[in-house]
């Protein structure tokens, strides 16, 4: 059963909670406890704004098990406004052409379903084109 390993990550999956380094102020996502910038201990939690832009992207047609029902779907490396890159699917894109540099924001969506209709649903962050009002 994979329930505990998804439950453990609820802060990251639903809240984009990472860390801020108390020594050099670097913002860290995903959390890793040792600051990648200065190498010192960094355990102070920090909630990211969820705003960023597309660093690069592509489309997946042949997906891994658990994702194949959603194919084709678009994945991206998103550069968060606070600095880090994250790997995430893009969603709610509609007919808009995706471009490098396109502003996006985090939303919570279903990532995958394990097994049959009784299988666990895994929710987490995806990114959508940033809405004008936000």
């Amino acid at each position, binding site marked *: 059963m994979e329930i505990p*390993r998804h439950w453990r*990550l609820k802060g*990251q999956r639903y809240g984009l909670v990472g860390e801020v380094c108390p020594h050099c102020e670097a913002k860290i996502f*995903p959390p*890793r406890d040792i600051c*990648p910038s200065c190498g010192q201990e960094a355990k102070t939690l920090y909630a990211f704004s969820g705003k960023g832009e597309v*660093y*690069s*992207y*592509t*489309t*997946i*047609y*042949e*997906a*891994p*098990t*658990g*994702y*194949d029902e*959603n194919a084709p*779907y678009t*994945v*991206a*490396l998103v550069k968060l406004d606070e600095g*880090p*890159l*994250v*790997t*995430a*699917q893009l969603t709610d894109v509609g007919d808009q052409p995706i471009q*490098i540099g396109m502003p996006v924001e985090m939303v919570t969506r279903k*990532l*995958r379903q394990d097994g049959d209709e009784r299988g666990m649903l*895994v929710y*987490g962050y*995806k990114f959508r084109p940033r809405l004008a009002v936000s």
Partner: protein
Amino acid sequence: MIMTDIIIAGIGQTPVGEHWDISLRELGFKAIEAAIADSGGLRPQALFVGNMLAPNLSRQAHLGALLADFAGLTGVEAATVEAAGASGGAALRQGYLAVKSGFVDVALVVGVEKFTDAIGSGVEAALATTFDSDFEAVQGMTLAAQAAMLMRRYMREFDVPADGLSGFALTAHANGASNKNAMFQKAIKLETYQKAEMISEPINMFDIAPNADGAAALVLTRRGLLPIGFSHPLVRIAGSASASDRLALHDRRDPLTFHASRITVEKALEQAGISFEQVSLFEYHDAYSIYAALSLEAAGFARRGQGWKLAQDGAIALTGKIPCATLGGLKARGNPGGATGVYQAVEAATQLRGQAGANQIAGARYALIQSLGGPASTAISHVLERAE
């Protein structure tokens, strides 16, 4: 440190392809049998197996005991070495260290991968276990999609035209045409590349090496332990280095730099006492054409953003300044996962022995080979030298 030469005394390989009728153990044994025979019958004391996915695709772990048993070597030290796509290079490195240390006199290194034990989305799911599971794989990522994002960003940053990376596939297929162990033995035209089906834009089917079954093996020993009458030209391991980078691509400060690749090339060349200009051939890990470009840059053959030009202007061809993928590379020979790094060593040794036939690099003395796990999350480089 024992200052003695480590010699690649035996090499063996199976053709790369879809071996539906051959099991994992039979495949591994074919390569082992060939390598031991090639070495003049040396008896291994230790077996290092490079494999990436057997526990997943074949429901088979514990390959050390399995292959030692099946090869009639019961009793020897035996274990699997896993570093994703660099598993073969990692197994070679462990074999080298074992013999170099003096604890082992004769080491057998075998890389084996059996992709066709699974099909469809199960293969993608198995490959996705090599990602950061919590933060990459959970998003439904594939290795090809990750490489596609690198390639798109690279092309954007360095103004690369749409078919700018075509030279890697064209070179690989031209070289694979005369390798009887290659999966694809046919040259392709530029138009074929330009019209190819997209896998994950901008990666088309010629920017990605085909996953396939295969096994390759090496017998390593110290120079003084070679059998009397050993008849092959001597090929020694002149440099060996391994390094890791941040596992997840998104955790890199600069995703377009293969940092671990650069570190290991520098170390391996330094151990061999040569500069990159003296390298006769480079077997890079062209699982994707963008990996080839980034590896050429990391190794120092091209400046940042310029690696693709070496493929476009013929510098990586057999007669070029730095021949690459000389027997087809991953693209045309095929990419048998954890066996790939061992194939590279077998092919480089073939070149240094002067036995590469139509693909022979004249006067080849130093071969640089590099095995990558993911986008150089692991990089393992070796320099092989034709010894006097």
